């Protein structure tokens, strides 16, 4: 099952890409996708407690199960305004 991962701000800098395509097992949660990414890019691990997550441009929790083709976004602490 394939999902699109979106990364922003410093997370994007760490991974060197704003968008990644990743294979996951059916039934995978956002949290599992995050932990795979953090293994791939160890500098991400420090963000585990401070990120927000979204699926298809709606905020979602880490335990949310994703579906084929979903866009999963990882958002560092925000600083708009």
């Amino acid at each position, binding site marked *: 099952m394939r999902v699109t991962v*979106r990364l*922003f*701000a*410093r997370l994007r*800098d760490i991974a060197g890409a704003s968008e990644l395509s990743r294979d996951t097992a059916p039934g995978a949660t956002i949290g599992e996708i995050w932990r795979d990414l953090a293994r791939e890019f160890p500098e991400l691990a420090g963000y585990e407690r*401070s*990120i*927000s997550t*979204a699926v298809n*441009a*709606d*905020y979602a929790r880490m335990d949310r199960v994703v579906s084929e083709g979903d866009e999963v*976004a990882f*958002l*560092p*602490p*925000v*600083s*708009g*305004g």
Partner: protein
Amino acid sequence: MAIAPRLTRAAQPPRRYTGPVIPLFAIGPSPLEVDRIAAALADAAAAAAGEDGAVVTFLGLVRNHNMGRRVRYLEYEAYEPLALKAFERIAREAGERWPDARLALHHRVGRLHVGEASVAIVVRSPHRAHAYAACRYAIERVKQIAPVWKREFFDGGDVWIEGATANPDDARARAEAERVACA
């Protein structure tokens, strides 16, 4: 004796502004046009416009200093579709707390220099107290839950600014924004 031609009245009153109608909520690279945002808000509430007694406008500007650093410019980025939903959510929340207030909210992305506006919020209400409070509430909530980030370029380096972990369901954050708005 010459007869002056009669001027025919237009069926519709002339519109004050021409060009495409701009939305109440927007995020993008274009400079913020606060007059047009205010006009869009007035048009959207045309039926109630006569009841409004106050318009409050807030512009957030790029400041030349931050935490002891001399700021050269900022680069903003956003998860734009989610940012738009966050702005609409903020307006709904403000409407729940101050039912007679209506607001418009635009945010910029891209490189912004010192003195440029990064965010514009316009609020109309029959009462100035509600307009001021809803406007303050909206900017506090932008800083809490809008998926927007600024990278600061200063004399000697650059850094991503990281503020709040965005969680729109965090009731304590929302209560804190209300408290600040009503202080």
